[in-house]
């Protein structure tokens, strides 16, 4: 590895030859708000607590989305704003202090407390930034208190993770100019996937490698001009900007879905660290072959099948690319809540010409198109899946793609299986 290769690391994607047309619609959006991110973030960050400051609706959303997990060991809760808070009979900041005190007494093991903004708290302009600062000073040394917004008016589903990680970036220790270059892998991943990637980076001779978010606050990695980072998730626009402002460079790559995506993603890191190409191929080959074999098992079922993605998580683009290039599926419409062209430049370039891209949503118009297109599979949220099934359209519910391990070589077969299963089931059933 050499410092020189780091300097030549590309900081953004090659400009795509032609900008594809994107259908932009505004109307009813059938999506989750960013608060939902808490459900997986709190499992990942084991000494963090997420306190939503919001309404009964926010609490109800979390429990509806979390299902039974809420009883496992929840490190999230809602401070429900009440009439007296709105009428000014209670000072919201005092109330918040009281609740945080109560919470931290009961959960002394908490090291990071996120005050998470919601639609109500944003609309009444409750200054959670100020509250976080004040409380942080009060609990200095024992608990770090941060704030971000997961409100629906500002964030869609996975953007909640983006907002949360963005709040963590200023907390990362500064790497000094003389420090060895480090690689950051950015985006919450299931532990098993994180470990697989760690082993691959070790074998490649890339290091030190750190993950953001870290399991514990004390393990937050250093960042500085010698840092490069790989985005593991496509929805990290703000986090990416914050890391770049601290001097780190983004390695442009496909997202690590499927054999090709994962290879490209690893290669970006290998090139940045000046890893010998032969060595790279040798290390990557077994995983890549396993991935291809596992994918091949599903190919007969998925090849040539037409698929539509409704907007949900921003994973739609890379997943459509994976299904198209590695499984022969035909993307009809790929909807995304938000399209970051720079982060997705390489993904876009690999989508077949004629794929209809849409950003934003008017759900009724989009469903009209689904009914007209009649794709073999529609990837959508749980509010739409059963109604579409009842109309005779096969669906794959999208949230599972955020909650299941789908990154990397070893999960490529599972990822394909997630899309093959609804079709297989449809063929099996005789009722």
């Amino acid at each position: 590895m050499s410092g020189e290769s780091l300097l030549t690391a590309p900081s953004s994607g090659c400009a795509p030859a032609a900008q594809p047309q994107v259908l932009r619609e505004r109307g009813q959006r059938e999506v989750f708000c960013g608060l939902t991110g808490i459900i997986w973030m709190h499992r990942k960050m084991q000494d963090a607590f997420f306190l939503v400051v919001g309404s009964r609706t926010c609490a109800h959303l979390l429990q509806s989305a979390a299902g039974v997990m809420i009883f496992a060991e929840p490190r999230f809760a809602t401070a429900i704003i009440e009439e007296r808070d709105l009428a000014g009979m209670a000072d919201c900041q005092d109330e918040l202090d009281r609740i945080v005190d109560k919470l931290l007494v009961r959960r002394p093991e908490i090291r990071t407390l996120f005050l998470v903004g919601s639609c109500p708290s944003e609309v009444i302009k409750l200054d959670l930034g100020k509250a976080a600062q004040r409380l942080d000073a009060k609990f200095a040394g024992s608990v770090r208190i941060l704030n971000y917004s997961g409100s629906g008016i500002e964030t869609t589903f996975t953007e909640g993770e983006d907002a949360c990680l963005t709040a963590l970036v200023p907390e990362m220790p500064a790497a000094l100019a003389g420090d060895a270059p480090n690689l950051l892998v950015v985006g919450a991943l299931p532990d098993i996937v994180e470990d697989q990637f760690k082993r691959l980076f070790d074998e490649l001779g890339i290091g030190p490698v750190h993950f953001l978010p870290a399991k514990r606050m004390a393990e937050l990695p250093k960042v500085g001009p010698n840092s490069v980072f790989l985005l593991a998730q496509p929805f990290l626009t703000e986090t990416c900007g914050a890391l770049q402002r601290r001097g780190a460079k983004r390695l442009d790559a496909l997202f690590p879905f499927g054999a090709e995506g994962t290879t490209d993603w690893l290669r970006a890191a290998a090139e940045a660290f000046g890893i010998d190409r032969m060595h790279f191929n040798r290390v990557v080959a077994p995983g890549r072959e396993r991935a291809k074999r596992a994918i091949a098992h599903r190919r007969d079922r998925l090849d040539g099948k037409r698929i539509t993605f409704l907007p949900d998580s921003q994973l739609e683009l890379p997943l459509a690319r994976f299904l198209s290039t590695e499984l022969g599926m035909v993307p009809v419409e790929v909807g995304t809540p938000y399209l970051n062209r720079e982060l997705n430049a390489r993904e876009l370039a690999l989508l077949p010409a004629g794929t209809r891209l849409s950003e934003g949503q008017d759900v009724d118009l989009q469903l009209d198109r689904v009914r007209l297109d009649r794709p073999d599979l529609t990837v959508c949220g749980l509010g739409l899946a059963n109604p579409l099934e009842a109309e005779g359209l096969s669906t794959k519910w999208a949230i599972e793609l955020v909650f299941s391990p789908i990154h990397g070589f070893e999960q490529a077969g599972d990822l394909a299986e997630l899309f093959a299963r609804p079709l297989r089931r449809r063929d099996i059933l005789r009722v």
Partner: protein
Amino acid sequence: MQLAVWTYEGPPHVGAMRVATAMQDMHYVLHAPQGDTYADLLFTMIERRGKRPPVTYTTFQARDLGKDTASIFQNAARDAYERFAPKALLVGASCTAELIQDDPAGLAEALELPCPVIPLELPSYQRKENWGAAETFYRVVRQLVDRDIRPAPREGRRPLVNLLGPCALGFRHRDDVAEVRKLLDSIGIDVNCVAPLDAAPDDIRTLGRADFNIVLYPETGGEAARWLDQALHQPSIRTVPIGVGATREFIAEVAALAGVDETAALVDPQSRMPWWSRSVDSTYLTGKRVFIFGDATHAIAAARIAHEELGFEVCGLGCYNREFAREMRAAAAFYGVDPLITDDHLEVEDAILNASPELVLGTQMERHIAKRFGIPCAVISSPVHVQDFTARHSPQMGFEGANVIFDTWVHPLVMGLEEHLLTMFRDDFEFSDEAGPSHLHGGAPVARPQAEPAPASRMGEVAEMPTATTIEWTAEAEQELKKVPFFVRGKVRRNTEAFAASQGRGAVDLATLYDAKAHYAR
């Protein structure tokens, strides 16, 4: 502010959605931020509906604030009318839209849509889901009922009633309606309209045709029935037919009000619960301590069944909807327990541990509490999860409902013979109480709470019996305690420690254990 991990009820606009989704030809335009559409999945996933709820959300975003949220609302309402052509439109705001004060009522009125528009005022920061459903149904009825439509003369026709209260996402509402219809039919009474479930605005218009109303669920139908009584002088029956006794009373009241002979309904050959409960196999149920929590209607009905029809001892009773606190207090007084009226599940958990029940009857939430502490449990009330929207017919009401309830409640208990065997062969390696009831899977239940690794889940409190004191147990006494069946062991431990403390004994030895047993036996 109130700190909450779990809520028994959603916000009031979810109640409004339950009414809109229950109805036909009704549409609800909800001024709400992006994200509030999560509530759709309650209907499509938990109730497994094959249609989207008839709700259009404005899903405004931050960039819309301060300029055009009002026009977004008007566009959404106009588009919804054109697309879905409802016979009536509900309009209202969710919690966030309530703060931006766009006035959905005035905005919708200005559109002059060619259908009735029913504005909803649902104070999200004061009220909750059940209240929202009751209020919405009341508004619908009040606005749509044709006051000139009155019952036809009684000569030459069967009596006619309305069934009020069944909703979308209601616990067993579908099957309760079928069961009550059957009962009424057997004594010659016809149903004019069930509402809101499956009713269209036109059906609501003709509610006045009925001779009287039957309120199946006071939580959702009570307000509308009250108004119908005032405005149309339609009396209502409020006895809820859950349990054999309550069903008999219900039949008698309905028959009296309708002027028909009730006999045909009272002898139902399919009613097996009374004999099941009298059969000697059920003797072991006598005096089992049961803790009951849920919505007030189901909890109060369950207490009566437990007490009169299964011979249980009600050791705790409560509800989460304070609108029915008065009824709950009266019922609790009858059973000689303190009423528990709270929407804080941690309080419920403490109360359950304090009462040391042998069976918990509650909501999904109590199911999880009971599971954690190894106490058998059955679900009697919302909120419930998907498994309590069953494919099979499983009412709570009427005689078939009583059959269902008997099976449901007895099932989680260790069966009588097994209970004896467990006591006799407790040291048998294959047949010890750690193995749990043989008819329930996955049930190695019952490490008693103290033995669990302290779960930090109760907001950091150690999940122990709350009265666990510092009193020491000798090894011998601890060993002897293990011979007590697991389902009463917690109670024996607590009683013994309380006894030891009251006697000023610092430790529990064998003698103290048996002194305490004698003491409590008196």
